[in-house]
């Protein structure tokens, strides 16, 4: 990270100015090297669509300057893309299901909607999406409200329907307004697969205070092909924030539709735990998407997932949700302790229940994470 400055001087300048500048550069290098040592490296790891980038966005909102108008506007194309992609997935999914269940007609769209559906599917397959207009919105809503599509949506776990589908469809009118500027909630719901590595630096006490920890947070892609890049980030990590979406127990991977998402997360978590470079690294497990988990548990039993096949429901309603959550949490705890050796005795391991879309919850959770890491830091410095 050298500060190598090669500026072209216009004409001959006095040497004192050069010396001043050189001294200034030296000072800055020194400052930075000193500062680097105090920066705590955090990694956001997890399988695809587990909520890592949403947590990343939340950190920007909470501890940095947030999103300015330009950035918010740049999300409009993403949100519109999500809408088109959703409707395309549902339409194509309905066609497939209609073919595979040739007898029943519940996945057959009505005659008028069929044509509109084909048109929208075509648009969804293009590279450049048109901006959402009133007419397109009406078309999309017609298709969305078609019983065949709603029936397909109930089987959305077999297709790759994004979690934001419901939210965007409900707010479709607002999204298509001419002077639409995405709200914070819209931005948090917007789904884009991350590729490569993204980083940000922040301090939990706020940007104006000078004291306090400085964290450098790295966000990565979660799909299988992205994981070979993780290894470049594994040195000197203070804490790994592992995101596991617990609502995905009946869904399959984007990159491999023959593999259950929770089983993949389980294997991935084990792999991460076994890495040599993480012997002293703290692990924060975020059991994410609790809001979706709450709604799903009463409709889809946990034992559809192989790892949870010994689950027995005991009651109904909120109690059942809590019971199911505790079951899942225990499974992850057991998994952690199965993969712990004597080298890892001092390692910190905490589990948090999160909903990455909920700003208050993420703020609270992060404050707890920060506290844990500060205590750990003091402990390691021998002061505790």
């Amino acid at each position, binding site marked *: 990270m050298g500060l190598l400055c090669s500026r072209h001087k216009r004409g001959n300048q006095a040497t004192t100015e050069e010396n001043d500048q050189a001294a200034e550069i030296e000072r800055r290098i020194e400052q930075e090297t000193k500062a680097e040592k105090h920066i705590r490296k955090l990694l956001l790891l997890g399988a695809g669509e587990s909520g890592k980038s949403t947590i990343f966005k939340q950190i920007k909102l909470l501890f940095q300057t947030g999103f300015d108008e330009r950035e918010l506007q740049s999300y409009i194309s993403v949100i519109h893309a999500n809408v088109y992609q959703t409707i395309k997935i549902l339409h194509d999914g309905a066609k497939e299901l209609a073919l595979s269940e040739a007898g029943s007609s519940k996945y057959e769209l009505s005659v008028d909607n069929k044509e509109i559906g084909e048109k929208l599917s075509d648009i969804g*397959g*293009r*590279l450049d999406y048109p901006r959402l207009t009133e007419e397109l919105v009406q078309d999309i809503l017609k298709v969305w409200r078609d019983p065949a599509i709603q029936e397909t949506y109930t089987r959305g776990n077999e297709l790759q329907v994004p979690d934001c589908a419901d939210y965007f469809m409900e707010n479709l009118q607002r999204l298509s307004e001419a002077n639409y500027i995405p709200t914070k909630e819209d931005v948090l719901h917007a789904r884009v697969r991350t590729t*490569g590595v993204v*980083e940000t630096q922040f301090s939990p006490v706020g940007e104006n205070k000078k004291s306090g920890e400085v964290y450098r947070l790295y966000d990565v892609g979660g799909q299988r092909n992205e994981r070979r890049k993780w290894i470049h980030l594994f040195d000197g990590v203070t804490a790994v924030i592992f995101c596991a979406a617990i609502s995905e127990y009946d869904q399959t991977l984007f*990159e491999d539709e023959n593999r259950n998402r929770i089983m993949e997360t389980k294997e991935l978590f084990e792999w991460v735990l076994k890495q040599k470079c993480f012997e002293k690294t703290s692990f924060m497990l975020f059991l994410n998407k609790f809001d979706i988990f709450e709604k799903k548990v009463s409709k889809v039993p946990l034992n559809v997932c192989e790892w949870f096949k010994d689950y027995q429901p005991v009651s109904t309603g909120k109690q059942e949700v809590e019971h199911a959550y505790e079951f899942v949490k225990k499974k992850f705890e057991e998994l952690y302790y199965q993969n712990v050796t004597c080298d890892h005795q001092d390692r910190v391991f905490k589990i948090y229940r999160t909903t990455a879309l909920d700003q208050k919850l993420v703020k609270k959770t992060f404050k707890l994470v920060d506290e844990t890491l500060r205590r750990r830091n003091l402990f390691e410095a021998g002061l505790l």
Partner: protein
Amino acid sequence: MAGCDVIRGCPSDYVALSVAILSFILLLLRSTLPFLIYKVPRPKGSSFWLPAIQIMASFNVLLSLVMSLNVVRFHRRHWWQSCYLWAVWVNGPLGFGLLLSCRLIQAAHLYSVFIKRRLFPIRSYISLPLTLLPWVAWAGFLHIKQPLNNRCHTGTQWAVLYTCFPVLYTVALVYITTAIHHTEFKFHELKDLWRGILVTVFSIGVWVVSYILHETHEEIMWLQVTTRCVLLVVAGFLVVAFFSISFSQPLVSDMSLHKRRSFNLKTMGEALGIPDSGILSQDDPTLDVVPNEPLDKLLLNKRFCLSFMEFADSCLAGESVHFYNEVQQLEKIPINDPVKRIYMVRHIIEKYISTGAPMEVNISHKTRQEILTTLDLAHPDLFRNAVNELLQLMNMNLAKDYWSSIFFLKFKEEAAMRSVDHELEQVNGWTVSPRPSSVRCPDDPFYQDHVPRDPPSHDGHGSYLQ
């Protein structure tokens, strides 16, 4: 006094043994040196395993001949000197049989890709044992029937049956080779196939002749000694001449034949002679970039594409751009040249699409399966869905961060320097890029003095790369 012809260990035997050892060393050099010189990463999947198994099988052939012909004199008989172990098992299913089976599968792959225009549907770890099954069955049968005498020799009818196997496999190899011989291969696959067949036929011929001589002139001792020596030397020659990497790594095999012009491996585009696929030249046009233009149009300009590629590589997301680039090269190959297209397609699939590929791209399961199970590798729209998905990904992910990165600034500076008037555009609306190659951001807690921000003057690569 028993001569060396009876108790083994004649000088000619040791000469033959050294020839065999030298041949094996030569084989190892031939197979590994090109990779070491050009620093090519180890290939994955059957591209690595089939040649590796061939090398192992070659070693087994040589070793089994040394042991079963009793070329080396041992002072005691050990249990592992059993004739059946070497002459039947190691020589057959683990040696010569394995060699022929590997080559048969490689030829079948070529047939499937270039004639049937689809990827070979059976995975190698299933097809190889299946191909080897007859040899294993035969070895088991021999082991049960025990027709070998204590000099490791069989009767004529067993020998005839034993020769049937290599002959059958060679016939199958000839059949597949003639089916593909009209294809215009760009690398010397056909030459290597014919060479393999010829040396095999030659070796079988030598084996048959030596067997006949042994049966008819058992009493002539020097003949025995000579045939032993000849067999081992021919086996050494076989293993070296049989081996080829042009099936699995055509680019590497291509470079190893020419005089080394540079230490850089050619790209597939360059090897196939696709225009404009090499490095940047002075004549490449610059581009007046407008950030709102669609990315696919911008990427048509070579300088922009290279700048964008560098940026993507710096944040570990380069594979999408490289893939896009190579698909563009593929599209320059005319439709009426299916062989070249298939080479390029196969190369792209092995590098970017196969699970576990070195630069695997981020595409959906459906798209990947569509490509891997396609019935026409030369189809012009094979990669359309994948390209669309990745352009979407690049658009929504990388493009935003690129405009505020140091690479774009460098690109604009270079473009400005190259243009007639040297007005440097004002960089308006400078925003922070979250990618590691960005300049310092205003909320950096260590920017305590409000030093006016200078034009970027430091190395923009992310600190995590150190």
